[in-house]
């Protein structure tokens, strides 16, 4: 058993980070110049880290698979970014943000990290404003805030519905400034396929140039992974098409532990699936639930008629509608947390009450609000969302109810990291959504952007110096070392094997099949028997993939099918690990409902005695079962309580 120790400073919670900064070892500017750092990924975490490390004087190499760093999927975040600024004087402070995050995460996050995150949050806003991020403002010229995700205070900063885009452009511009200054070298259109470990330390990466197909070696004194989440394991998700787990997965296979892989967040308000060729799901802001009422028909005959488009939803009489959230959760109604709303929608659809052509959708009805407030008021609040919905679905939500269904949105699991954001491999760091993060079993709205930027701008630049201060005598790492040769050899082997399979089935087909298995058995509701079944199905899928995948095109050219094949192969293995993790976690917590662990009236039941820990998995070789390690979570400041929304 590996002893998983976060290594937070021995100080009262509120003083840990300042005490860390006061005592951490720094690197002299002359020595920074001699130290190389690789940063993989250019989203909020990766771009902010690369920019800041470059600004400090390190030699940074930044990698992304996109054509430019500005396209990383952080760009798609809509809602906002939390910060304990208390500009509204409504009682917010660092402790309250910390408390909300711990509670929102259903008591499965580490207190020390979360407190640090909350305490850094105000600095993020200061920096972003200085970079020129055009946050929403009041007429007086000061910053505006809104309340988000049911919190009692207004602490969310936003830039219309495009906060992620504006923050990312801020980080991208900081990165561009460093690229121009020569402190960061950008490698775009590159897939990082392997991490190179030399004498137990992360020393480089093997990448494929996506344009030429060349395999390249890059070395550094430390490697930072900021590669985002793995939601695409479900095939259909709100992630970008290219989002993948590959760099994190190769880190796992090289010895980094993978924590809480089964923790994924399912968002209740997405546009439903329309057909077999659908490639991607689109999220619509959660704020819609403030004014929309969710329902399905009470009678199956009505459901049938709706699916055949013989009647329209407006024709169903009020008395024949089942407002199931209001019925089940009278206190919170349509505003129950994400996980509860998602699960309830799935339950209705599983029972056969789902609407839409696929039967996997529920109505979100604005007619009451429109009658009460007028169409103009609704348009002022949600105009752009209604427009987006109409563009995709071709229905007018002012006239007919929207259809929504839950979709995978964020992954709380990821590489295990300590207080310094270092994985269990020395010199290998993981930041942003890529690590197992500060969000426990469920992330609060508007917290993902906060974490990515906190890690990149303010945490990693300190903690990495503690490691690098011991590396100042290490000369530049040579890419001719045998470890690099072996890694290149392995990568080439796997590529030839993929290319040489000469099967009949396209990569997408395998990906879709995997997605269906994961969604069905390892989605928002899980059971022992279902998970056991999934384990078998994934095993078969893995074997089929190895023998039957078909990849056209060559190795030494632009070949998107080959890229996808590598990623999907990793997703299949990750799926296996997720199912194993879900099997072991015999409790319902956060967004995950374990059917064996529920209260007598069918609500989620957490089990703090047995599962108040982080499960971190160790790779033991292909074919061998991974080993589960635990990091016990101590709640000294916040006392865990059971959530109730009745």
């Amino acid at each position: 058993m590996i002893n998983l120790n976060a290594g937070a400073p021995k100080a009262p919670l509120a003083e840990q980070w300042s005490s860390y900064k006061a005592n951490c070892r720094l690197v002299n500017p002359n020595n920074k110049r001699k130290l190389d750092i690789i940063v993989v990924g250019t989203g909020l975490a990766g771009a902010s880290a690369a920019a800041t490390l470059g600004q400090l004087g390190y030699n940074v190499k930044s990698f992304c698979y996109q054509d430019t760093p500005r396209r990383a999927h952080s760009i798609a975040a809509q809602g906002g970014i939390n910060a304990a600024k208390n500009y509204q004087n409504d009682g917010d402070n660092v402790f309250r943000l910390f408390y909300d995050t711990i509670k929102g995460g259903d008591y499965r996050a580490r207190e020390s990290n979360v407190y640090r995150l909350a305490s850094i949050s105000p600095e993020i806003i200061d920096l972003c404003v200085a970079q020129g991020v055009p946050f929403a403002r009041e007429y007086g010229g000061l910053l505006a805030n809104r309340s988000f995700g049911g919190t009692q205070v207004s602490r969310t900063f936003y830039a219309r519905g495009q906060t992620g885009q504006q923050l990312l452009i801020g980080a991208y511009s900081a990165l561009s400034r460093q690229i121009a200054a020569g402190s960061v070298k950008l490698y775009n259109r590159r897939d990082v396929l392997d991490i190179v470990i030399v004498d137990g330390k992360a020393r480089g990466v093997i990448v494929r140039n996506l344009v030429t197909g060349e395999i390249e070696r890059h070395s550094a004194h430390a490697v930072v992974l900021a590669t985002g989440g793995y939601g695409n394991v479900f095939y259909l998700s709100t992630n970008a098409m290219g989002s993948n787990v590959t760099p994190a997965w190769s880190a796992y296979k090289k010895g980094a532990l993978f924590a809480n892989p089964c923790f994924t967040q399912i968002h209740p308000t997405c546009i439903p699936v329309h057909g077999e060729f659908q490639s991607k799901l689109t999220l619509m802001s959660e704020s819609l639930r403030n004014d929309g009422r969710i329902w399905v028909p009470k009678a199956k005959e009505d459901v049938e008629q709706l699916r055949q488009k013989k009647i329209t939803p407006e024709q169903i009489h009020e008395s024949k509608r089942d407002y199931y959230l209001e019925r089940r959760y009278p206190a919170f109604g349509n505003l129950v947390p994400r996980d509860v709303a998602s699960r309830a929608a799935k339950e209705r659809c599983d029972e056969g009450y789902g609407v839409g052509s696929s039967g996997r959708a529920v109505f979100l009805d604005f007619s009451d609000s429109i009658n009460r407030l007028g169409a103009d008021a609704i348009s002022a609040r949600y105009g752009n969302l209604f427009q987006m919905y109409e563009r995709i679905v071709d229905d007018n939500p002012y006239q007919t109810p929207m259809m929504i269904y839950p979709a995978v949105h964020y992954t709380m699991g990821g590489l295990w990291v300590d207080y310094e954001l270092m994985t269990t491999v020395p010199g290998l760091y993981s930041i942003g959504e890529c690590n197992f993060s500060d969000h426990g079993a469920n992330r609060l709205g508007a917290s993902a952007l906060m974490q990515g930027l906190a890690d990149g701008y303010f945490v990693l630049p300190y903690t990495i110096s503690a490691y690098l201060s011991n590396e100042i005598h290490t000369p530049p790492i040579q890419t001719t070392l045998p470890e690099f040769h072996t890694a290149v050899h392995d990568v080439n082997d796997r590529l030839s094997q993929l290319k040489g399979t000469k099967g009949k089935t396209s990569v997408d087909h395998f990906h879709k099949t995997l997605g269906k298995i994961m969604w069905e058995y390892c989605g928002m509701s899980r059971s022992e028997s279902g998970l056991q079944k999934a384990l078998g199905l994934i095993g078969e899928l893995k074997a089929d993939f190895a023998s039957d995948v078909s990849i056209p095109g060559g190795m030494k050219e632009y070949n998107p099918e080959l890229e996808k094949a590598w990623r999907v192969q990793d997703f299949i293995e990750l799926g296996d690990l997720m199912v194993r993790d879900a099997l072991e976690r015999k409790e319902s917590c956060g967004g995950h409902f374990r059917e064996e662990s529920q209260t007598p009236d069918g609500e989620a039941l957490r089990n703090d005695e047995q599962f108040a820990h982080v499960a971190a998995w160790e790779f033991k070789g292909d074919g061998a079962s991974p080993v589960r390690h635990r990091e016990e979570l101590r709640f000294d400041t916040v006392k865990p309580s059971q959530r109730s929304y009745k």
Partner: protein
Amino acid sequence: MIFTLKIWRQKNASDKGGLVTYKAEDISPDSSFFEMLDQLNQQLIAKGEDPVAFDHDCREGICGTCSLYINGRPHGPLKGTTTCQLHMRSFRNGETIYVEPWRCGAFPVIKDLIVDRSAFDKIIQAGGYVSVNSGGIPDANTIPVPKPDADAAFDAAACIGCGACVASCPNASAMLFVGAKVSHLALLPQGRVEAEHRVQKMVATMDSLGFGNCSNTYACEAECPKEIAVTNIARMNREFLAAKIFAEKEKQISFTL
């Protein structure tokens, strides 16, 4: 629905390339344009042929990766919409659809419909930022910003860097892209500090990369998926002229300790 597709195929940068005709059958009107191409590619893969390469990523209209010059218009016929958000119901059943890559000397074709837009990154690197480090920043509310300025800055900053402006411009000019970034930062007090320097650097870099010059056709504004206004080009021109005429020569200061 059924479509005849005339798609630009080009093996690599040095290949000459040409239009190839394909039939797309059994397409749902609810499919996005890319889902239609996905479907075509699945057929090509099944036949052992090389699938059509095109750039795409978020598929929700914000990352700016997608391109495609569809029937003579970047991002196709719908106003204010990226290709990934374009659905097949916007086309007539049986229609012939031309699909070409962005055309501009500064955007060389990599393969099929994919072009290299790193010229945009180079322009941003020339000055599309505020030179601040991550320490010692004053509180975010220290400088009030008039709401109309903040809103106008946001409108300019909404640019997704897709390059539709260049693709649609009869002159392959990048003025809207550069104008949007110059405007975004010039409108905010935080960006004002180095505004003179920035606009000169960015325009010089744009010129050096081989983009065309603006002839005020406003095709860029009509085709921009984020509907960024040509007012931003005028603002850039204004900023540029003011900087050229009034800014003093920068001294090159060098000293040793």
